[in-house]
Each structure stands twice: as structure tokens, then as C-alpha cells.
């Protein structure tokens, strides 16, 4: 990704003034650094379930901005800034993305056709960016990305009187952004309660810091010396960033014999491969790395030299680029073909195992998506557009996807109904009522009724500390969610599951189905199911491979 960054920086002296080409590289640097730190921003979300939002949205917005200028050779700074602003506007995703696009819009407007950017222009543009962003909201909430934009503009206006060195100015702007981000909890109580800083503000900080790091010649694609809790390692996402030549993904768990010297540790890993992530929990370290075939065993040998290796997992990435999902048995669900005039069901499914179950019940199309990856309207619409029937039912299986499903209904010329299932169990209950040759309206209302007849439970890991519904949750704890509400939290999956079932009064129901997630081994799932059976002896317990990310278990009680 950074090949073009390595290209000449010698067109002019970058520290006194900046031209359009330099801006392009700065944008790429900001995007790359934000991308490297995306997970950090995502974990700052104020709701405790994994809901990878702000970081992802900001990366997508910046990516759209960069895509717009990727092939441009424009040297005029102002023109380049306008193109960036246009790209950001078109690609703006989510609240933070929209604000980011407004910042770029204001920034570009202040510069108009300016050929090169100098210190005082930079201050003026940041001020205009702030003004434009503030205009977009009636009641600006302080302690957000807006506050950070305000503080950096103030810093730039102050500093350009003392120096015209762009590097120095950017340095103090980045420092101001950092201070401002650290101060956000003091301004916004909801952040203080949650014990986090504002995610959008942090994202803006990373963009600016990326630009600064680029000017200083520092690396942009690694997170130096950061260790995250094991529970926060979202390894599924690393598949998106496979570089050519990195053929294998190696994950090693080990127990170090002595304290780890992080910079040296990272230094060694960097020589072996890319996409490095290190997690730590209860004395165990987990290293995730992408390596070329040649270095396949290097991470294992290295960790063996500094500790005791407890577990190793190797995946062939080349094999996976098409098939995505990792630890689950890879067999594509067999979809039910649909005849013209029949009712076809389109299902949004968070995991391959769940997809297979839906397919076996007669789903005609499956869209991948769930809590952290909401499919777009287009993805849903595309799934049913080509089906040879015009009677379509959509099961979104997640509250956040309802909207996209409804939008898909509106853009389609077919007769489409959305049965608003908020969870996989609800979706399955509705699926049972499908009669492909039945009367469309009757089937839809039957399916809607079925939604009420099932209870949905989820077991997942809290990504941060929170107190909600009177339940105190520590970061990394297992939480139980019943019909969308947090009901229990404790350190263990099994305990959480049993408590979830007793809170749901599962003893008054007949069937309990457990879909185990991608992080749970089949053996573990069977053991837990045995425990459940011993507590709920008169209920039928079914165990299914769900392969969903983030959720250890999805539970259907009916």
C-alpha cells in the first residue's frame, strides 16, 4: 500500500510549503495510520457489544477520499483538497464519517485554487474546517470530534505566528489533538461513565498523527508496542489486509519465561512478516502474523526461544482469500432453487454454520452480515434481484440490518416483504413457517407471528467496562444478552449460558438450540451442552455449528 509513499519526496522542500502531490501522500499516510489503528478506535464505542463502528466508518470515508485522488497528478494544493473533499463526501459513512467529510469540505473551501499550502493558509483552512463542521449541527455536543477540530484549529492559529515550518506546526497540532482527545471524558459524561475517550476524536488524531509520522519517516503499518487484551483481538478482520507474498497466517499462544521487551519483540516479528497483532491475557501471549511460506516456522521457533508455546494455528491465506472464514469447516450451503411464482427467502447470516442451517430450511439466497459487518442495501438487493421469482421475503436477523433490508425492499420492483427478525433464532423460527407455494401475505404474517414465539439469547465478550441495567461489566468479561438486553455478566462462558437460560425460564420451554461461534471448539460446545442438559433435563438440547464471529453462543429457546 505504501509503495507510492516511498516514491520521491524530493519535488520541493516539504517543511515550508506543501503542494497537491504532497497532500496526496499525506492523505494516504493518514489513511494508512488510521487503518492500522482501526481496532483501537472501534473498541472505544460506547455500547459494550462488539459493534465495530467509528473506526471502520472513518477508514471507509478516508478510503473513499483517497480513491478519488489515487490516480491524480494534480500539483495544485487547492484543487487536490477539493477532490479529497468530494471523495470524502461521497463515501461518508456514519456520524463520524459525515463530520470528517465536512471538515474536509471546509478545509478545501478555505484554500480554493491555492497552488501551495503555507503555514498561515493551514491555520486558516483548519479554522474554516471547524466552522463548516459546526454549522452542520444545531446542538453541537462537546467532547466529540467537533471539539478536537476546534482545539486543533485554535492551536494552528496560535502557532503559525511563531514558525513557518510545516513540520513543527503539524507536530503541535497533533499534540493539541492528543490533549483534546484525552480531555473528551471531562466534557461528555457518557464517555466518563464508560471510561473511554471519544472514538471520532481519536480517529481524527490518528489521521493527523499518520501525516506527521510520514513527514518524520516513521512506519505507518504497524502499531508499535501495543498489546491488547486477548478478548479484543479481532483476527477475522486481518484477512482484509493480506499483502502479496504473505501466504500463511500463523497464530501462536505462548507463556513467556521472562518479561517481554516489546520493541525488540516487535522488531523480530517485523522481520518475519506483516499484519502483526499481539494479545495478552492471564500470562498467555498470542501473536498473530502473516508470513511468506519461507518464514512459516520462524514465529514458532522465535516464540519457543523466549517461552513455552501452548498452541499453534496455521492457515493458508491464499486458500482463504476467496472463502474468507477461517476455523470452520468450509462447505458452501446448498441453496434451495426457486421456481417462478414461488416465494423466495433471502437471509442475512452472521456465520457459515448458520447459513447452512438456513439453507437446509429452504433459504434461496444468503447475504453474509451481522453485528460488526452490516451488509449494504445493494448487497441485499443484489442477492434477490436475479432470482427467477418476484415474491421475496427478507430475514435481516439483526436489528441494525432491518433498515438496509427495508431500503432494499423500496429499491426493488419485485414484491418484497421484510420480516423484521432481530436475531438468528427469530429468523429460524420464521423460516419454519415458509410455504414456498403459499399465499404471499399469509406466509408473511405467519412468519411475523413466529418471531414472537421464540426467545433469543446471545453470549459474547464485553469489549470494555460498563454499567448497564444495574449490571456491572468488566472489560473482557462474558456477557449474556436476552432478547437484546444485557441480563448477566461473569468471567465464564458456561456460567453465563446457564444463567441466561434460567433468566429466560428455559425450563418452561421445550427446545434449546445452541449455535456455537467460530471461537468455540466442537468439543467445548458438546461439554457445555452436557452441562446444560444436566440443568434442564426435560428440555431437548440441540447443538449446531454456527461459525459466527464475536458471539460464543447464539441460543434459541422455544
Amino acid at each position, binding site marked *: 500500500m505504501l509503495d507510492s509513499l516511498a516514491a520521491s519526496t524530493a519535488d520541493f522542500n516539504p517543511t515550508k510549503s506543501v503542494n497537491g502531490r504532497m497532500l496526496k501522500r499525506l492523505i494516504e499516510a493518514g489513511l494508512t495510520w488510521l487503518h492500522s489503528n482501526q481496532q483501537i478506535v472501534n473498541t472505544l464505542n460506547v455500547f459494550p457489544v462488539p459493534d465495530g463502528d467509528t473506526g471502520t466508518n472513518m477508514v471507509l470515508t478516508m478510503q473513499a477520499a483517497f480513491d478519488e485522488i489515487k490516480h491524480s497528478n494534480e500539483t495544485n494544493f487547492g484543487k487536490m483538497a477539493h477532490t479529497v473533499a468530494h471523495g470524502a463526501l461521497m463515501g461518508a459513512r456514519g456520524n463520524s464519517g*459525515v463530520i470528517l467529510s465536512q471538515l474536509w*469540505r471546509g478545509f478545501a473551501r478555505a484554500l480554493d485554487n491555492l497552488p501551495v499550502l503555507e503555514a498561515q493558509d493551514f491555520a486558516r483552512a483548519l479554522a474554516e474546517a471547524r466552522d*463548516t463542521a459546526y*454549522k452542520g*449541527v*444545531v446542538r453541537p455536543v462537546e467532547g466529540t470530534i467537533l471539539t478536537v477540530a476546534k482545539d486543533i484549529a485554535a492551536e494552528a492559529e496560535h502557532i503559525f505566528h511563531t514558525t513557518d515550518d510545516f513540520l513543527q506546526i503539524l507536530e503541535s497540532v497533533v499534540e493539541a489533538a492528543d490533549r483534546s482527545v484525552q480531555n473528551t471524558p471531562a466534557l461528555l459524561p457518557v464517555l466518563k461513565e464508560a471510561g473511554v475517550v471519544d472514538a471520532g476524536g481519536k480517529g481524527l488524531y490518528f489521521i493527523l498523527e499518520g501525516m506527521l509520522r510520514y513527514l518524520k519517516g516513521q512506519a505507518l503499518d504497524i502499531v508499535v508496542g501495543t498489546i491488547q487484551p486477548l478478548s479484543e483481538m479481532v483476527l477475522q478482520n486481518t484477512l482484509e489486509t493480506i499483502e502479496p507474498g504473505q501466504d500463511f497466517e500463523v497464530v501462536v499462544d505462548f507463556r513467556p519465561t521472562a518479561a517481554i521487551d516489546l520493541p525488540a519483540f516487535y522488531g523480530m516479528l517485523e522481520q518475519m512478516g506483516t499484519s502483526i497483532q499481539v494479545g495478552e491475557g492471564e500470562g498467555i501471549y498470542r501473536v498473530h502474523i502473516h508470513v511468506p511460506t519461507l518464514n512459516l516456522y520462524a514465529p514458532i521457533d522465535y516464540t519457543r526461544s523466549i517461552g513455552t508455546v501452548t498452541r499453534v494455528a496455521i492457515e493458508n491465506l491464499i486458500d482463504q482469500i476467496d472463502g474468507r472464514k477461517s476455523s470452520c469447516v468450509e462447505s458452501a450451503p446448498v441453496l434451495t432453487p426457486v421456481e417462478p411464482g414461488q416465494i423466495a427467502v433471502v437471509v442475512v447470516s452472521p456465520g457459515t454454520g448458520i447459513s447452512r442451517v438456513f439453507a437446509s430450511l429452504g433459504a434461496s439466497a444468503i447475504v453474509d452480515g451481522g453485528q460488526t459487518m452490516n451488509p449494504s442495501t445493494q448487497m441485499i438487493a443484489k442477492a434477490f434481484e436475479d432470482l427467477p421469482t418476484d415474491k421475496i421475503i427478507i430475514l435481516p436477523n439483526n*436489528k441494525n440490518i432491518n433498515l438496509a433490508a427495508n431500503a432494499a425492499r423500496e429499491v426493488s420492483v419485485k414484491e418484497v416483504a421484510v420480516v423484521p427478525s*432481530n436475531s438468528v433464532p427469530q429468523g429460524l423460527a420464521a423460516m419454519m413457517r415458509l410455504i414456498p407455494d403459499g399465499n404471499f401475505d399469509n406466509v408473511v404474517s405467519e412468519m411475523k407471528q413466529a418471531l414472537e414465539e421464540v426467545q433469543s439469547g446471545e453470549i459474547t465478550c464485553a469489549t470494555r467496562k460498563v454499567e448497564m441495567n444495574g449490571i456491572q461489566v468488566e472489560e473482557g468479561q462474558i456477557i449474556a444478552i436476552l432478547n437484546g*438486553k444485557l441480563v448477566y455478566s461473569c468471567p465464564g462462558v458456561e456460567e453465563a449460558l446457564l444463567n441466561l437460560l434460567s433468566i429466560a425460564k428455559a425450563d418452561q420451554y421445550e427446545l434449546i438450540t445452541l449455535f456455537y461461534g467460530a471461537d468455540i471448539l466442537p468439543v467445548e460446545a458438546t461439554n457445555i451442552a452436557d452441562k446444560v442438559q444436566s440443568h434442564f433435563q426435560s428440555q431437548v438440547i440441540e447443538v449446531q455449528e454456527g461459525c459466527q464471529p464475536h458471539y460464543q453462543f447464539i441460543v434459541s429457546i422455544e
Partner: protein
Amino acid sequence: MSEKNLQYELIPLGTIKVSPNAIANIAYHAALESYGVVGFTSKNLVYGLTQAIVKDPTYGVDVHYDGKEIDIDLYLIIEYGTRIKSVAHSVSNTVRYHVEKALGISINEVNVHVRGLRISDID
């Protein structure tokens, strides 16, 4: 406080009723805090006139409750130059989140009707 006072039985205390107006109020404030929303407009002219006389803080918000599901309709003015689709999407998310958080009741639909744009700057 003695030990004895702390022990009490859980007995039904009565019912709680929340009027659509109260829900509209929460939605109104949540929407106004949402980025890109610069104002509300009335659903139609007649309604607009009555609202102009009786000024209430639920202007441009419609709450429907059919005994089972709650739908919220928002009639908004958005800042020119923002991505309207994204703004509408996040307004709808924010309103749903705040209303559900405040009431503990799940919302069926939040519909966003963009009725106009406010132009403060033209690029």
C-alpha cells in the same frame, strides 16, 4: 436503617404508561443532537399551522403506536453539503438508540423524511 427495613417483597406496583408525546420528545432531542440535522418541518401545511400556534417540542416528529409496535416518523431539514443518506442513516440509528435506552421498549421503524436542505455555504 435497620436490617428489617431492607427486606421487602416484590409486589406489583401498578402500570406505567408512556404517551406518544413523551416518546416524540425524546426522539426530537436525539435527532437534534445528531450531526447534519439542522431543523424540523411539519408533516403537512394544516398540521404546520396548528403547530405554529401551539408550539410544542415534538414538531416534525410523529409517533405511531398500534398497540403492538412503535413507529417513529421524522420530518427533517438537513445541512446542505452533507451526505444525506449517511445523515439519515445515523439519525435513525441515534433516535432508535436513545428512545430504546430511555424506555426499554424496542422500536419497530424509524422513518426519516428529508423535507429540505439548509444552505449555509456553497462551494
